């Protein structure tokens, strides 16, 4: 078997202790994915596994065997910017940029979850199938991604804009 990373097949590591994060950064030189806490608390290492957002620091690379990994390098279409990347620039959704790849990977999956009607802790009526994406909803759904620079308001603006464009 193999791990598909941004469309390319990669052998899983011999050593089962290697995290998906270390495989991406140290062995594949895909350094867009960042190491923050290495214990699940910050979201800097967020990637997509079979399209779902996960933490690559708490995923053993062998657990991804036979599955599809998408990193920030694989999200954009060639040299063009992903709509979220463009919106983050427009709304000052970052300062140092360290949390940004994780934020954008997380936001891309989050927007899909919303169109699928997945509720959050702040969704008033859990039985309701249609989610109205408010700032409060975005804050809750993005709470797994911390920004030490405090760019959260710009991040929410950027995500809201992309969500609104998608819906239009």
């Amino acid at each position: 078997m193999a791990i598909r990373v941004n469309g390319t097949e990669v052998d899983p590591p011999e050593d089962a202790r290697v995290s998906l994060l270390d495989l991406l950064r140290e062995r594949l030189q895909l350094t867009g994915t960042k190491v923050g806490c290495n214990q699940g608390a910050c979201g800097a290492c967020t990637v997509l596994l079979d399209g779902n957002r996960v933490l690559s620091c708490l995923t053993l690379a062998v657990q991804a065997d036979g599955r599809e990994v998408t990193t920030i390098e694989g999200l954009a279409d060639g040299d063009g910017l992903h709509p979220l990347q463009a919106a983050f620039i427009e709304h000052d959704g970052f300062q140092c940029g360290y949390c940004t790849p994780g934020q954008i990977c997380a936001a891309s999956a989050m927007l899909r979850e919303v169109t699928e009607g997945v509720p959050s802790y702040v969704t008033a009526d859990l039985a309701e199938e249609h989610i109205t994406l408010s700032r409060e909803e975005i804050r809750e759904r993005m709470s797994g991604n911390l920004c030490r620079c405090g760019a959260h308001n710009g991040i929410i603006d950027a995500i809201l804009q992309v969500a609104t464009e998608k819906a239009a």
Partner: protein
Amino acid sequence: MNPVTYQRASSLAEAVRLAESSQLLGGGTNLVDLMRKGVERPSQLTDVTALSAAIAATDDGRLVIGAAARNSAVAAHPLVRSRHPMLSRAILAGASAQVRNMATVGGNLMQRTRCLYFADVAGSRCNKRQPGSGCDAAGGFERYHAIIGASPACSATHPSDMCVALAALDADVRIVGPAGKRTVALVDFHRLPEDRPDQETALKQGEVIEAIEIPDAPFAARSDYRKVRDRASYAFALVSVASGLTLREGRIDEIRIAFGGIAPKPWRAYRAEAALRGVVPTAEAFKAAADLELAEATPLAGNAFKIALAKRTLAAVLTDLSGDDR
């Protein structure tokens, strides 16, 4: 981290065969972290995420959730959202979307405490990590520790939100081992610490959690979960409440209550339930029931605030659940 081998179980029988000599791996959100910290030191891992993750209702209305179901899949399932909303809300109150996408139901049941002293291998004594070594939490940072059900040996809390809802929902845990299948009520699955805080659950060596089962009940459809924590999201509970109820002729008929964040296990509030059955729902009745439940609380110096917080949170949830707009 110690060297470790990795294999995937493709059937329940294979998982049971491998469980004797290896540690099971769900999403890894707790185990991988604890291996890195040196708290857990398995030499063999058996990945059980290929086992049943199905979520389906039986003919008699019971909801069966495979142990490999991801926490996010349970929370988003239409049957859970409509019939057991407190379970959806409890799961959604926990961790982050990324962690919930990884975490399995089996792993959530088996997750270890978040006591800082338990995780601090190099610097702290811990009776749970190393039986008989002592407890550095006592007299230390006690904010997240238990106010009820603890022992002198250990006052660590059980960190799960999901399990608090399962305790209130009368859920059962289906277990498979070398000797066959058995079922344990969720409320009996986790143990109180007494003098053996290292023995946390009813699961024996070599056993595998296969599924959980939740009966269908009217109180479950009228239910909710509220979590109070140090920040608005992505933090463990200081206090949480899962509850569901039905009303008949203006009085409480069926009621279930469980607390999180205050005890070494999901704390089913049987005394408060008994005090409220058949009673007109009023602020006074809620307060009396909460006082009764927490009468035997023995807080530590750093967490006495949790008694009042638990009582007020319970009152808020019950006020909401018994209101007309439900």
